[in-house]
């Protein structure tokens, strides 16, 4: 089981109105560092829960798409329609608005990225588990791949110097402005952009699961069925409120996971578009 259980197990009988006098221990960022099963890897935390959840996410994505893409026909059934809707969603909401029709060749890649990120977010919905993207290594990997892609595609489409010139000196500006704009553009395009691209997804997943953990921990702490009857009632009320909060934020978290996967893919598409054509 996961980190929260591990921490709870440390003080199993710590509850509100308990007689052992211990206070509430809030979830710490330790929950994002599950105990590794295989730790003897230099410079790494080792093989831990994240990699298992990653495997689950990848397996889910592969299963989903092999299911969507089998026995396709011109007149689609319900299953095929859902798969097509997903592809059309990527086309009409992500690649077409950002890149236009010339971005159609990126639809398969963007669809793969979107579904993989979504699956890696959704592992956080399994009780006691974490979103895979609540670890910076994975989001940095995604952002890094997109970053390398933008540079490679940019050089291929606009030439080595052409691409960097278009990024650093945005065309159609008075020459004097470049003194101001060029350092900002260098910073924003080549340093800040990939970092924020990775951090945005990581931070939302991290904060979201921490928030859910707070409600889970609090609800568990406030639930005390061994105290005096009146206090049991109060504790039930409190933990009931915590449960309600947990469920509300659970639904909220699903929305956030969808939105963040969408935003990450949309931004990736936007960045690649800047490599396809000179800035306007």
């Amino acid at each position, binding site marked *: 089981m996961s980190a929260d259980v591990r921490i709870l197990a440390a003080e199993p009988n710590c509850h509100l109105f308990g007689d052992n006098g211990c206070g509430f221990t809030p979830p710490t960022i330790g929950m994002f560092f599950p105990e590794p099963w295989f730790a003897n890897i230099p410079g790494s*935390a080792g093989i831990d829960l994240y990699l298992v959840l990653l495997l689950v996410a990848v397996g889910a994505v592969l299963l989903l798409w092999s299911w969507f893409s089998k026995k396709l026909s011109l007149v689609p059934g319900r299953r095929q329609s859902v798969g097509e809707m997903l592809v059309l969603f990527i086309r009409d909401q992500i690649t077409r608005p950002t890149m236009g029709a010339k971005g159609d060749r990126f639809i398969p890649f963007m669809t793969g990225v979107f579904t993989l990120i979504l699956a890696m977010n959704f592992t956080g919905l399994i009780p006691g588990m974490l979103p895979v993207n609540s670890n910076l290594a*994975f989001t940095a990997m995604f952002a890094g791949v997109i970053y390398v892609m933008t540079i490679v595609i940019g050089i291929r489409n606009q030439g080595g110097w052409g691409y960097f010139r278009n990024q650093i000196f945005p065309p159609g500006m008075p020459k004097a402005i470049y003194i101001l704009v060029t350092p900002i553009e260098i910073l924003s395009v080549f340093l800040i952009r990939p970092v924020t691209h990775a951090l945005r997804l990581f931070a939302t997943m991290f904060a979201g699961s921490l928030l859910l953990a707070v409600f889970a921990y609090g609800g568990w702490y406030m639930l005390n069925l061994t105290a005096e009857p009146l206090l049991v009632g109060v504790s039930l009320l409190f933990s009931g409120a915590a449960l309600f909060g947990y469920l509300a934020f659970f639904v909220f978290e699903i929305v956030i996971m969808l939105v963040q996967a969408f935003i990450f893919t949309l931004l990736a598409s936007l960045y690649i578009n800047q490599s396809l054509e000179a800035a306007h």
Partner: protein
Amino acid sequence: MLVELAADYNILRIDWVKFTFGAIALAVVYFFVARKAVPKVMAVLDERHDAIEGGIERAKRAEAEAEEIRQQYREKLEEAHRESAQELERAKEQRAAIIAEAREEAQAEARRIVEAAHAQIEADRQQAMVQLRGEIGGLSADLAGRIVGETLSDSAVQNRVIDRFLDELEQSQSTQQAEVR
């Protein structure tokens, strides 16, 4: 103890093992989803789009073709009408011409027959006249001989007398004819 541990946790550290496995995961998804599954779905989408578009295109083409054929048919029909009308007109003209010609011919023929008849009558009359003149001469001489009681022996005198008589007769006859006309 937990707080102490938390101090060691660096959430911004990028674990290279996780990074590597993440990259492998993306590569796997890329090859199975982005290279295989999604293109298959997109191919069907394109195919359907083509099928629908093609159907509409075919229907439009068939409609245009039908319209063209209808137009041609209408034109041919009009032409046929026009031609038959012309034919009728020509036939009418021909008929009139034939009738006129026939009438003319008939009139000419009739005129010719009438003229021939006139000529014949004139000839007959002439002949009768000549014959009559001979006969009347003989008869007159005979009669005169009987009246005078002698035969006019001198034939030259006889002929002169007869001729004079006949001329007188002719003159009176032609005045009579003129009066009739």
